[in-house]
């Protein structure tokens, strides 16, 4: 009995003129996660040899698609090296791929008779695969399980639990793929990802640490950063070593500081080890903060083991990139962001895959190595406009996703400059983005977006067209870069901001989402309003400082009226909250664990026309961290979500008036 046809990913089976075809819905005008290939058809002839290409957003060409995708690059490389009519690549990669859907797509792809399976995954093997190992999971059972792991082993308990689960799930998926491949006797090529170690930083605070460890850690963090700023590497090293001692290596940011120190000291191998430890320590197991998809050591090892056990061909991009670039810490040359590849990155990575496929195909008289193949291959053709759009996308994406231990501006400005270098006309797109962000409405309603859509620099959803935050870092980077090139962007952006965000009679509440300077500094489940968690009407800060966007014309004093408190797990707490505008402390307010409201006048001399950064510096929590963590465990045991991190301060409202 023949099985009825099944969808392959989003491609639905259809009968067209008596022939089975798989047809995908039209791509949404704002873009979607799948290859822009309308139809897939079963293979009819021996040649071309068909490579089915699977993977996550890296494999889908995130930020370049649909102009350039790894699958299309691979196809053109195979044809260039193995014959124009001898190869084709079917692009089944998708952004947000998970293990379960990967296995299903591989299985159903057999309906179109692939000859080779090429699989490029591992960056997403994080919270997407083990969301239940989290103190915020919407399940009493899951929370109790996290509590048990915490009680038994501290923070390493849930991390171990998540790692074990991931190992089981990934291994099972790779077993399934091996079984499928064996059954139809086709080879598998696994691509082991490399990640951006030089330019991508992960800023996450540690969980409660015993005694006053959390307060000490944050104090040391500040010392280390200041020392790095003034290149006092010995002081930075001393502080970082103490941080490591306190957090036991479980906090990604300590590793980043160590990586930066080693980099400054000229020890790239040491820096690399620290950066890898940073990736491995990113706190997915707590799901408290958004990290970036980056393949961990475990993810790469699971794939390496599977390749050995099942006889898969393996392309290790870590080795490939290192050999290609000579860089010990791969960075912006190969990566647009945490893991998505530049044009060169795609070219090199796919050349390595092409070499494996060519060798497996037996179509060449002798095996080929990727290095010699790469030298022969044409560079992918991409219009300057598409390249500039991808680089602008990298800047926008980094503005949203990158939380740096060091400064964020330089990386954003790098990508904006790079975009302008690729195609100076992209400046119009930058101004359109800036305009759309200044307007308190969905970008899709703005004339700015329409202009952008009619231009050769069309930004799709994945480039960050959202509307609920001002995107202060991006606005600042755009104005800095354009001002350097002679475009008076500062005045223009200030005018737009004042037009749409001027303080009315009621004042502006800076605690409302649009005015949070860095929205992702909060607990991630709060940002996303996850199911089964208490909704929050307040802004809670897991960092010693919280910044807001204050918009004014700079001609008058501004009066601010914060309503804030210093949360505590047990007992009471009090301290002074220092208030800073554009980096200058202008006053403070005494606060306790109960709400207080104060007022403060900011003299116009401290204010710029347009965007101003208002920062609250919180006093450190002085509670006994062990007891605080125990309290969190007790909540989890009751089936309640719990924060494992100290909260420095909480803001209900921060009203700003023109004085």
């Amino acid at each position: 009995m023949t099985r009825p046809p099944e969808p392959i990913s989003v491609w639905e089976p259809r009968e067209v003129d008596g022939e089975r075809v798989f047809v995908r819905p039209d791509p949404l005008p704002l873009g979607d996660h799948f290859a822009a290939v309308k139809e897939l058809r079963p293979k009819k002839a021996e040649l071309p040899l068909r490579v089915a290409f699977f993977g996550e957003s890296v494999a889908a060409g995130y930020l370049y698609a649909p102009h350039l995708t790894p699958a299309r690059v691979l196809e053109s490389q195979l044809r260039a090296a193995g014959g124009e009519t001898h190869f084709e690549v079917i692009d089944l990669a998708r952004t947000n791929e998970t293990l379960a859907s990967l296995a299903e797509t591989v299985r159903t792809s057999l309906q179109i008779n692939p000859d080779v399976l090429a699989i490029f995954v591992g960056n997403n093997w994080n919270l997407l695969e083990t969301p239940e190992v989290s103190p915020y999971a919407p399940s009493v059972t899951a929370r109790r399980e996290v509590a048990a792991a915490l009680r038994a082993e501290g923070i390493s308990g849930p991390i171990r639990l998540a790692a074990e689960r991931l190992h089981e799930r990934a291994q099972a998926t790779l077993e399934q793929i091996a079984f499928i491949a064996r059954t139809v006797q086709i080879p598998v090529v696994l691509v082991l990802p490399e990640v951006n170690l030089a330019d991508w930083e992960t800023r996450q605070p540690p969980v409660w640490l015993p005694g006053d460890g959390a307060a000490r850690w944050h104090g040391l963090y500040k010392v280390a950063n200041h020392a790095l700023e003034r290149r006092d590497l010995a002081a930075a090293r001393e502080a970082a070593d103490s941080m490591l001692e306190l957090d036991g290596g479980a906090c990604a940011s300590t590793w980043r500081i160590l990586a930066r120190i080693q980099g400054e000291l000229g020890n790239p191998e040491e820096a690399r080890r620290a950066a890898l430890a940073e990736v491995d320590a990113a706190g997915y197991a707590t799901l408290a903060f958004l990290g970036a998809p980056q393949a961990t050591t475990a993810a790469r090892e699971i794939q390496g083991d599977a390749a050995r056990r099942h006889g898969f061909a393996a392309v290790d991009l870590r080795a490939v990139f290192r050999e290609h670039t000579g860089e010990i810490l791969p960075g912006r040359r190969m990566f647009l962001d945490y893991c998505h590849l530049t044009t060169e990155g795609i070219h090199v990575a796919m050349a390595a895959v092409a070499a494996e496929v060519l060798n497996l195909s037996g179509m060449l008289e002798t095996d080929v190595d990727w290095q010699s193949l790469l030298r022969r291959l044409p560079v992918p053709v991409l219009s300057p406009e598409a390249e500039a759009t991808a680089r602008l996308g990298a800047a926008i994406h980094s503005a949203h996703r990158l939380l740096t231990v060091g400064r964020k501006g330089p990386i954003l400005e790098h990508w904006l400059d790079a975009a302008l270098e690729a195609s100076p006309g992209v400046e119009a797109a930058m101004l359109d983005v800036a305009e759309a962000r200044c307007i308190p409405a969905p970008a899709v309603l703005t004339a700015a977006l329409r202009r952008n859509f009619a231009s050769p620099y069309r930004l799709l959803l994945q480039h960050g067209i959202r509307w609920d935050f001002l995107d202060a870092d991006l606005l600042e980077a755009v104005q800095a870069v354009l001002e350097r090139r002679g475009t008076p962007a500062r005045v223009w952006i200030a005018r737009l901001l004042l037009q749409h965000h001027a303080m009315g009679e009621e004042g502006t509440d800076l605690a409302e989402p649009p005015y949070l300077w860095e929205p992702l500094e909060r607990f991630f489940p709060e940002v996303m309003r996850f199911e089964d968690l208490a909704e929050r009407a307040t802004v809670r800060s897991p960092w010693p400082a919280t910044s807001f966007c204050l918009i004014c014309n700079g001609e008058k004093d501004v009066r601010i009226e914060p309503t804030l408190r210093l949360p505590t797990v047990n007992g009471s707490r009090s301290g002074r909250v220092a208030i800073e505008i554009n980096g200058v402390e202008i006053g403070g307010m005494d606060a306790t664990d109960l709400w207080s409201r104060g007022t403060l006048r900011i003299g116009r001399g401290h204010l710029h026309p347009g965007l101003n950064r208002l920062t609250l510096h919180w006093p450190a929590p002085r509670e006994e961290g062990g007891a605080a963590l125990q309290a969190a465990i007790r909540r989890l045991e009751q089936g309640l979500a719990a924060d494992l991190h100290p909260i420095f301060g909480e803001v209900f409202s921060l009203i700003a008036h023109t004085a």
Partner: protein
Amino acid sequence: MPRTGRAGPGGEAGKVELPYNRPGMNVLGLSAFFHESACCLLRDGRLVAAAEEERFSRVKHDPRLPVSAFRWCLKRGGIGLVDLDAVAFYESPVAKVSRQFWAGTAADLLDPERPERAIREGLGWEGPILTFPHHLSHAASAFFFSGFPAAAVLTVDGVGEWDTTAYGQAGGTGIDLFESVAFPHSLGLLYSTITSYLGFAVNDGEYKVMGLAPYGEPRYLKEMRRLVASGPDGQFRLDLRYFDFVRGRKMYSEALVDLLGQPPRSRESEITRFHQDVARSLQTVLEEILIEKTRWLHERTGLPDLCMAGGVALNCVANGRILREGSFRRLFVQPAAGDSGGCLGAAALAHVHLTDERPGEALQHVYLGPCSTADEVSRLLGAAELPALDFRYREAEMLEVVVDRLEARKVVAWFHGPLELGPRALGGRSLLGDPRDPEMRDRLNRLVKKREAFRPFAPSVLGEHAAAHFDLGHPSPFMLETCRVLSPLDLPAVTHVDGSARPQTVDAAVAPRFAALLEAFHRRTGCPILVNTSFNVRGEPIVASPVDALLCFASTGIDTLALEDFVIDRDRLPADWADLLPAWRQRLRSGFARNTGEWSAISEDLYTFV
């Protein structure tokens, strides 16, 4: 009353100013965690703000802690968190959990501390939390805002804590609920059960059953009377053999299917004569019981006026009959009679508790939600570069232009002033049309509402002309009762199959611009009536902000948008919006579904967040 938050010091640059407090009693009412959560603010007993969370979150019937509504109520009231005196919650969590425990809900899911914890942790509230029984909150929401010095009170819904129906009398600051009907015997759940059997969603499709009923004949009265039997005084009982909602996973049992003789209707399938007859029979039995019970209540209290709330009080057909055929002289139904309006009652009860004074005043309108200034709208339209007609300071001209569109049989989306509280759009966020147009109902459905063709649309009529067109001897500002259409005009768009309508009478003193529009339409056409349905598409809450309005307008087939002082015609919209906006809305909707449903799909949000 001690304030638990502390007003803190402030000062000249760098120095703290003197503390300050605002005088008066500020009570925030809150309903949440079942469906349609909401908040309201009473300042010195006066209702100054109220809104459902769904209008902010854009999740229909959003049951979550109403954080946005909470923040907005304080903002509208011009106060801060530390100025609040109390938060009042609309039901007793312990009593509710005891009923859920009795009904067999898994122990892990029972958490009587959840509301307080959510208010403390989610809203950050440190002060007193006062909780009031569910039906008492409903009763208070009706009585204290009725303007009646004393009244009988009837609350009817699915279930609140243990009770499903409560009877009482109120006067001054006191409400005495002297009789109740206990779960599982529930008129609300009876109605929801048949709603489910007829293929509509529970807690959403009950209106549809009410709208379907006039198409049918009461051929299943005998069967309905087996489902529910009236008892002495205020009592009635369900025959539980026909129901499965107590411990089962659906509303009705197989016995009900056997009794009615046909399988339940699947969602979106054809509606047959049988379904119409079942709806009619249910509606008839509900009306009979309610009339009987209100007569008993009248006898028991001897009071001339009746106040009603609870979800069943939104059954405007039954309300009309209660008033016409019952014993009471006047009826006040609290316009947000469902659970969202429970927050009004809780706040009122808290005010009484704290001050010994009667709160509230006769509710003149429900324009209690967010609004936008013409300048804000102007900036939005400017940012979109929409060629809108600007009528700032020229209202009369604007109304004539809108009437031009209405007279040309166009569908006009009307956005003016504060958003309405409750399920009815009453001229704040409305879709309007010419009621004389025989095509208008289909047109509204085709272009925007996408709802079942059998459902009627309601009319808004100038108050002074109401009696000439409707069998209505009193104002009906909240569209909460039906009556016969008497109009000499042919009004096919608003006249139901049985010759009834559910009018809103519009008073120029309360809704001046909406009344002026009706007057302008009347002057031009001789018809003082407009079709008025809510400004939303199926499955979405009523629009709240100008952005919502623009998105809804641009991604549906609405002909014209009157957005505060601006008028925008469809043919002036950018051509590419036709593709872009539906795609955008689809992305938003799927985002909401994920955030309220599937944990496993959070990956989508990691990317759509950027």
